[in-house]
């Protein structure tokens, strides 16, 4: 009997040991299952924030485009207030989507983040050629600035749109009558590009040939017409990608934009530049002064031929094109996002269609030369300059008469009022030059005036 009990104990011990081993295996197996469970979970905690931020940026960008188009006739203040009025609607739309997924999202406008700009547009109903307001076909569209959201719509069906083949354009170095956009570096002049836009033969396709003037390299993109958007911001021609157009991202800023053979294209164009116009119904301002000076040699028109119209129309209500209107260049919004695992607060700069880095060059918001009485050589100057990235500014103003004798105010602050310049009576016309610099970047504007006690004519 004793022998039988010993045998039984051995089997019992063996069974117990095996049971423990099986439990251990079960535990290990459980951990392995848990591990695979962890590994196979959808796991990207930042996705919701990235998606919400994208929605906010797109919506705010659309809001900027909308107010720039719809409220330009009312001036900067109304554009700004209509933009901020739209922010709660954006928040309501994107926050609802976030709430469905159990996340909290808040969107708010950043006070003081608005940067004023100038919208340049020629979107005449039915399309038109791209000549200036004075019917010049070769003219400077933007002088010493940078632009965002630059889109040209070309219509291959219109008889104006030049019909050429790629080889014709290339052999003529883009000078073969095709409509050409020029981008010229205003710094050291080593970064210059041309883009010719034309119909490819009579196929109805639109070609865009990009040429780097300095290296001589050329690239051509094309797409089916008849109406095609050439988008310099996104590097697209119609629905096709056109990477050569993205040279604008690397372009040295600020730059000049010119149109050549602008009677050889039909369609529309639009862009927003980092400048300011004086108001919704006037073409005056440092931005248009520079454009007119580039085209005429003087901000007020052609000095030898007398005053002309500016190259832009002002009124957003009038059906005259091209025109300049007040616009928002950029704004900023704050977003706050809370979910079970992610807390996020961020600020987003909204400048739809901007290519490359944000503006760094000082903006001359006001440069006003007043001649209150005739024949005394006295002028007063008001100015206001801002820097887009908040650098401290230095302003120099030089007033020079026709004999070369000058008087100046140097190292002035960003704002000045009724600064008196006493010049020699009878030695006009008088040239006033303002240069604003932040130490790295500078921008200037020039006005020519007569000592006649008013602002009419040219010199003004």
């Amino acid at each position, binding site marked *: 009997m004793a022998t039988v009990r010993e045998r039984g104990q051995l089997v019992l011990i063996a069974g117990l040991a095996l049971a423990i081993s099986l439990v251990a295996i079960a535990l290990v197996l459980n951990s392995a299952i848990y591990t695979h469970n962890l590994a196979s979970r959808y796991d990207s905690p930042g996705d919701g924030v990235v998606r919400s931020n994208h929605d906010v940026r797109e919506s705010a960008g659309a809001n900027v485009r909308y107010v720039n188009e719809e409220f330009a006739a009312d001036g900067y203040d109304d554009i700004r207030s209509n933009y901020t009025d739209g922010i709660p609607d954006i928040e309501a739309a994107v926050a609802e989507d976030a709430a469905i997924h159990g996340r909290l999202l808040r969107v708010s406008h950043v006070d003081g983040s608005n940067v004023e700009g100038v919208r340049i547009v020629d979107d005449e109903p039915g399309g038109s050629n791209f000549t200036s307001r004075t019917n010049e076909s070769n003219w400077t569209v933007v002088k010493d600035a940078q632009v965002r959201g630059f889109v040209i719509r070309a219509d291959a069906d219109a008889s104006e749109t030049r019909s050429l083949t790629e080889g014709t354009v290339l052999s003529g170095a883009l000078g073969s009558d095709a409509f050409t956009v020029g981008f010229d570096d205003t710094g050291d002049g080593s970064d210059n590009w041309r883009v010719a836009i034309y119909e490819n033969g009579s196929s109805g396709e639109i070609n865009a040939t990009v040429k780097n003037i300095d290296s001589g390299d050329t690239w051509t993109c094309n797409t089916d017409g008849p109406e095609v958007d050439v988008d310099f911001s996104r590097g697209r021609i119609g629905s096709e990608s056109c990477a050569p157009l993205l040279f604008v991202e690397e372009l040295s800023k600020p730059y000049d934009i010119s149109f050549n053979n602008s009677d050889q294209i039909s369609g529309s164009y639009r862009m927003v530049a980092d400048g300011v116009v004086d108001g919704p119904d006037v073409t005056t301002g440092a931005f248009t002064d520079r454009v007119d000076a580039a085209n005429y040699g003087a901000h007020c028109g052609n000095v030898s031929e007398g005053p002309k119209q500016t190259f832009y129309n002002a009124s957003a209500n009038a059906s005259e094109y091209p025109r300049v209107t007040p616009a928002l260049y950029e704004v900023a919004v704050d977003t706050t996002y809370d979910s*079970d695992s992610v807390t996020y607060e961020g*600020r987003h700069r909204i400048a739809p269609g901007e290519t490359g880095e944000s503006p760094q060059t000082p903006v001359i918001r006001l440069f006003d030369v007043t001649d209150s009485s005739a024949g005394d050589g006295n002028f007063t100057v008001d100015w206001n300059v801002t820097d887009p990235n908040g650098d401290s500014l230095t302003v120099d103003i030089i007033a020079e008469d026709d004999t070369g004798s000058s008087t100046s105010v140097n190292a002035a602050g960003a704002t000045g009022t009724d600064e008196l310049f006493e010049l020699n009576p009878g030695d006009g016309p008088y040239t006033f030059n303002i240069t604003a610099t932040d130490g790295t970047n500078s921008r200037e504007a020039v006005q020519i005036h007569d000592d006649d006690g008013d602002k009419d004519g040219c010199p003004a």
Partner: protein
Amino acid sequence: MIFERVDDRGVSTVVGFVLTLGITSLLVIGLLVGTSGFVDGQRQGTIRDEMEVLGQQIAADIAAADRLVRAGGDTVTIERPLPNDVTGLSYRITIDGGQPVNIILATSNPDISVEVTVRTVTDVPGTTTLNGGDVEVVYDESDDELVVRNG
């Protein structure tokens, strides 16, 4: 009958008992040794796998925080609930900053170590050792760096 008598004479009760006990013991010992070795091997493999998954989750959080900072985030916190132990064993998490960021998870007895790397644009400073458990990745705006700490 003759053969039965021969059997009884050749194999005594004692010899039969010893043989039975011996063979049974050998079988049981073999089974136990084999099973325990198998269980131990599986356990180590599971610990390694689990720590690798946890390391990748921390790496995903660091990469996500980096992405959110680059997307304009001033305040970024990502919390990650992690188990306090792996297969019944406590573990340590060491974040070794620099480029790339090394995330090392290790246990003692048995000594198992797993390393996961991730590249970030925002700096992750120095070397930090955390206990196994909940972890959070926080953006320190004043120093412009990502800090990993126990949540």
